[in-house]
């Protein structure tokens, strides 16, 4: 007979409001392993904290997304959004699955090239493209998505200098019936700016206009917004054909598909409310197929989905450092992973789970990171069982943005480990050390 774990007695106030129809979960979810490998074992080998990526989940998710679109629309092409996670190992898997590269800087462009992506399979987005960047893109025959008129003028100048044609698309912002309207990128649809841009580009000698692009926002919870965007782009597509007797080649609906994370302030969990790939695909395909574009001239549909493809595949494993009681009596917990590693904790109520069945008595707690900064809060309110220091915890759905927006702040960035399809573990990014950080520094001799 095992000894029953001692728990400190706690007096908690009964809040007898109206419970939600789901009530309180009676069982605490726990994550003992990732793709069959015990969390303990991973942490023993690679330390704490440690990011873990599941190749299986990535490939499965990509296959789902691809199938959702390809069984609804004849020509679909995904482009992996580099900024979401540009670790070589991650990009390589998506490229292997057939995705192109969507980049927003010369750095990302070069990263894609270094991974063997064909220049003509790179979509170059973003508001910042220098003359050098444009030259690089033209030399590699990339698809340049023009953001504003000044960029267009610069591009015309560069193509003249190089005496080379550039393949371009324009970025369009539009009212898709959602709030907020993202109007800072690209040319506006409703006020005619986009049509104006199309006309100018069509007349430019050295520019091949091949596509229309929009990115209506991020974490879009309504599939219908995409349908609205798609039909607006379809209108421009047809208008271009009518005026210039020319068929553009693609319509790019950008990214923005929600993952299953729960946004802060959401009433229901993301797993219940976020649309599936099927719902997005249904909305977009129907909008394009039922537009006035003739069936045989339907454009290629590009999707720059990032978050929804990788978020679920990423885990952060962490260790409890301390338990405290705040002055209000609230239980708080310090773990060894903070907002320096979890940028997305500013947006989401991230799921934090123990690795084993603990007590069924849950108490509202706050989880702090290890930084010596007041803002370092991973969860400000979470029902959590009593845990001891040294307890291993798993934070799920952290594959997107965290491994690109993380900060080297106060401490080193940890190992990133990938579990491959044969359940073998590989370090895909090594833990930083003093050398990594100081090697770039120069200390003027005095």
């Amino acid at each position, binding site marked *: 007979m095992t000894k029953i774990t001692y728990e400190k007695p706690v007096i908690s106030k009964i809040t007898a409001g109206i419970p939600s129809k789901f009530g309180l979960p009676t069982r605490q979810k726990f994550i003992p392993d990732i793709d069959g490998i015990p969390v303990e074992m991973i942490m023993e080998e690679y330390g704490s904290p440690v990011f873990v990526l599941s190749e299986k989940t990535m490939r499965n998710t990509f296959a789902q997304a691809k199938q959702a679109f390809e069984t609804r629309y004849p020509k679909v092409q995904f482009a992996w959004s580099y900024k979401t996670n540009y670790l070589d190992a991650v990009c390589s898997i998506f490229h292997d699955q057939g995705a192109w590269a969507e980049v927003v800087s010369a750095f990302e462009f070069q990263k894609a090239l270094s991974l063997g992506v064909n220049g003509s399979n790179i979509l170059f987005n973003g508001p910042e493209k220098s003359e050098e960047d444009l030259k690089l893109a033209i030399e590699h025959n990339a698809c340049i998505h023009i953001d504003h008129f000044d960029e267009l003028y610069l591009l015309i100048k560069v193509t003249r200098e190089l005496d080379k044609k550039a393949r371009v698309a324009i970025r369009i912002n539009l009212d898709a019936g959602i709030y907020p309207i993202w109007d800072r990128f690209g040319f506006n649809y409703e006020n005619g700016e986009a049509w104006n841009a199309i006309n100018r580009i069509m007349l430019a000698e050295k520019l091949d206009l091949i596509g229309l692009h929009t990115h209506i926002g991020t974490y879009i919870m309504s599939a219908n917004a995409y349908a609205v965007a798609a039909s607006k782009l379809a209108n421009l597509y047809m208008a271009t054909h009518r005026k210039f007797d020319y068929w553009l080649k693609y319509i790019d609906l950008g990214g923005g598909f929600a993952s299953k994370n729960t946004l802060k302030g959401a009433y229901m969990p993301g797993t219940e409310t976020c649309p599936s790939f099927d719902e997005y695909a249904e909305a977009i395909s129907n909008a394009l197929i039922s537009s006035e574009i003739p*069936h045989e001239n339907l454009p290629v549909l590009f999707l720059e989905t990032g978050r929804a493809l990788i978020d679920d595949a990423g885990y952060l494993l962490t260790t409890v450092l301390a338990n405290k009681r705040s002055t209000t009596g609230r239980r708080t917990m310090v773990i060894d992973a903070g907002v320096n590693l979890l940028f997305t904790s500013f947006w989401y109520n991230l799921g934090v789970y123990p690795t084993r069945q603990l007590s069924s008595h849950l108490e509202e707690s706050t989880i702090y990171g290890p930084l010596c900064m007041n803002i370092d809060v991973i969860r400000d309110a979470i029902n959590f069982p009593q845990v001891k220091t040294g307890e291993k915890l798993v934070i799920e759905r952290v594959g997107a943005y965290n491994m690109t927006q993380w900060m080297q702040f106060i401490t080193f960035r940890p190992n990133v480990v990938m579990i491959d399809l044969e359940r073998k573990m590989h370090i895909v990014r090594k833990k930083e050390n003093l050398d990594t950080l100081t090697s770039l520094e120069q200390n003027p001799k005095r």
Partner: protein
Amino acid sequence: MITFPSIKRKEIVQSVLNSYSQVFFSGSNFLAVLLIIISFFDYGAGIGGLLAVLVANLLAYGLGYNKYLISSGIYGYNALLVGLGVGLFYQPSFEVYALIVIAAVVTFFITIVFQGVLGKYGLPFLSIPFLFGIWIVALSGGDLTALNISERGIFTYNELYALGGQHFVDFYDFLEKNISNSFVRIYFHSLGAIFFQSHLLAGIIIAIGLLIYSRITFVLSILGFSVAFLFYRLVGIEFSSLGYTFIGFNYILTAIALGGYYLVPGRVSFGWIILLLPAVVLITTSTQQIFILLRVSAYSLPFNIVVLMFLYALKLREKRPRKLLETPVQLGKPEKNLYLYSGNLKRFPAAYPVSATLPFLGEWTVSQGHSGEYTHKDAWRHAWDFVITDRNGEQYNGSGDFHEDYYCFGKAVLAPFDGTVVEAVNHIKDNTIGDVNTKENWGNTVIIKHNDYLYAKLSHLKYHSVEVKAGDQVKKGQLLGRCGNSGRSPYPHLHFQFQVTPYIGSVTLDYPFVNYLLKENNGYTQKNFEFPKKDDIVVNPVKNELLSKALHFIPGQRMNISVEVDSPKEKWQKMAGDFSWLVQTDVYNSTFIKCDKDQSLAYLHNNDEQHYFTNFTGTKYSPLYWFFVALFNVPIGFLANSRINDSIPINLMFTGALKFFQDFIAPLYLFLNIDYKLVIKDAGDILSSGDVQMKAEINKKILGKTVNTYEIEIKISQENVIQISVNFNEAKINITCQNEL
């Protein structure tokens, strides 16, 4: 006034030669020369034959008949036979040759008449004009008093002595004494009799000529003769009459014509020879009785009757046959016909007028194929059920208790081909999962009429999802409705079938899809005119603009070719240099590429979905040959990592003793094979930018064992330049083809 505006000597010579070889349905010059020599064993007959041929062919030229047909000899051979016959019958004299000229003219016009009359039925005129020509002369024979009947053929040895002296006589005597077997003797006599020769030597020479020209023809001549011979014995017909009247050639010609020429040779055509020849024997014996009354010979009448009857009967078959195939385009040699069409039978299994594609987007899985275990039985066995499965092979996500859990539910269902909607049912509710509606068995259904005998039926569609109504014209790929769960459908799936009648519940028709990609472990295999099987994961190919453009050869298009060769052998080295190719079409409307330098031809066929090379004439030391081999079968729509398999006609790659031996048994069994495999390594991208790179691998096989491999890298660039590099044990050849602007 007859004028000869543009006769070239070469054309005349060719037409004369072919008029001789045409008697054996051949275009072989070698055989023709042998036959001319034989005809001159009796110089009277020889001159008579040659005179008649010249008269007929010059007439044809002068009157302006089709030059291609003239040079193939078909206007000359009947006159030739008449000339030979008349020349042999009478002592050579001016009057006789005048008679021959007139007979040749008459025969020529009879030829034209029968060409017209029988041509309407798609039938050859065989030697019917000869029969009429020779009968006209023979029946009037009694009145032609100025002519003396020849005494030749009675004193054979005297004539042989006159031809070749004592040695020749001795040689002939040796043959006569040593070939004592009556079967063999009559066989040679019968062969010789085709050219009105009465002695063994002519038959022997013809037999050798046939053997060298075509093994299949030679085998057929023996087969036909043997069957007739055995039948004579069986029914007890006086056997010596066969030797005396030389009527045996009817059996030989019938066997050659039906066994290997007008039909593609094979086991079945050989079988029919065994069945038909006794009939020829009966017709021969009976017609002889009638013609005796007229005091003329029946000559080749039995052969003509049986061949025409049989060919006509075959033409009236309603279903396009897979066996006993009429030679579509006559290549002039049974071996060529066999090797080409046995492969083509697999490449183009039938003339399918409707190129139906899979009626959906993306990858679907066949959950029940033809003759499936659940419901595709009996009259409804030629149908497919399609569903969508995920990476784990599951059809649904979640519990599978709701329609929406199923991947296929609500997915677009498309028109497989252009047509008219004749039926659209839209009002039947989807069943709850697991339940079936046997009352409205087919559920929501769309039936499309593609042509008078072909309808496609798509069933179990989603309630109120059908977007077309009866009378609508639909285009291939147009949205018809959505996959659902109505009718006898326990879980969502798409039922698809072809049928010949426009009704719901009609029986199914065995009809294939024009092409689809079959998913495999590492890529796809393209299937043409095939039937997806249970558990196959299939997807429609996506058209590649670059390939479609590069492989669309337009008549008049000229290509500039440059060739580099790396080889120790001189014959390969000679291939290096610059060439010019021209795309043309011929009278049969087939497109071919012609090399100006070496005159080789590569025939092609492009159905918008696929580029095929169909045949090649010329030498393998031509760059066009390697172009032909490399691009033998290239799909125009495909995905990277897809492959296609085919086989190249063996006569195009095998030569020498092996091929010679293969010819003998080719109708029964092919032990030589040439496998063609094309792998698409890089297809450019979905915007069709980037080069296409392919690899062809050609394996020459004997009894299934690879004896030689040719590896060919093919690159088609954005600028439409086709680069082919061939690598095999003897040489490395690089060919660059560029369109002339």
